């Protein structure tokens, strides 16, 4: 140990304020970065889950067939019928 006592360690020979400010800000910013990254991940996952639910449930309710594959098939059929009915 480079210091005589714990209070010596905290005081750092008059430079304690400078040293501990630096280390405090270092850990604070690193922690903030990690926390923000985790928060961002959660937000992305939550938003996409919500979107998936939103996409799948109205289709299931509208169709009696309640299969996503059938719903998209029907959409293609209507666009196919349109030009045929025009002339």
């Amino acid at each position, binding site marked *: 140990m480079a210091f005589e006592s714990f209070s010596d360690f905290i005081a750092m020979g008059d*430079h304690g304020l400078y040293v501990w400010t630096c280390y405090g800000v270092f850990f604070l910013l690193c922690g903030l970065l990690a926390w923000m990254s985790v928060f961002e991940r959660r937000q992305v996952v939550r938003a996409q889950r919500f979107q998936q639910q939103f996409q799948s449930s109205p289709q299931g309710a509208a169709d009696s067939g309640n299969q996503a594959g059938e719903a998209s098939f029907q959409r293609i059929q209507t666009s196919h019928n349109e030009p045929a009915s025009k002339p």
Partner: protein
Amino acid sequence: MWQFFHKLGSPKWFYGIAGRFMPWLLAVGLLLSLAGIIWGLGFAPAERYQANSYRIIYIHVPTAFLAQSVYMMIAVAGVITLVWKMKLADVFVRAAAPVGVVLTLLALFTGAVWGKPTWGAYWVWDARLTSMLILLFLYIGIIGLGFAYSDEKAAAKAVAVLSIVGVVNIPIIKYSVEWWNTLHQPATFKLTEKPAMVPEMWVPLLMVVLGTYLLFGWIAFYRMQTEILRREHRTRWVRDLVQAGGQSQLKSGGA
């Protein structure tokens, strides 16, 4: 080689590999940097002229070092984006730029606080400090430019060009202490010479530098995974992964 390149183009493959590396990067990185910091703060001998204020070096040098390395990595990724149009390179740029901002801010802040007891001033407009401030603006510019385009490919190109042009700043930072008169001390580590410090001082410093590199690897992988989830949200595997909670580890191993 080409097969490896091809695989790197697959976001799912990368996601799985990153998930496998991440626990190790985090554990070893934390262990190394915390051990180095405790050693440096409490056990390394005091410096002859600066007494205990020099202990700021154990976070100042690693953050400054890493801030420049991360910029170099971003520039290399920029070249890869422009030449091979690899999406993953742009994903890295997006993920790493905010980390670079934090690192540069920390290097500047700890340097300023260290400057007060050592030089008698928080800030001087000399070459090292000014070029470091420019690095901060470059990072912020990269983030801002990324948001300025609605088209993902156009944004990736613009960001790549900016990051490559900004590389000019890196040798300026490195040699600023030799080219111009400055208060800043010369480099602590050189590849060709032994450090001027005693081993009890530089070994913990080297530990923190290596540890923060590994921790950067961890946070970069984590943030890249998030960016992949965002971009690939239409694919089957991302849909399944999101339903399962969006963990970093793939159940199938990702091979």
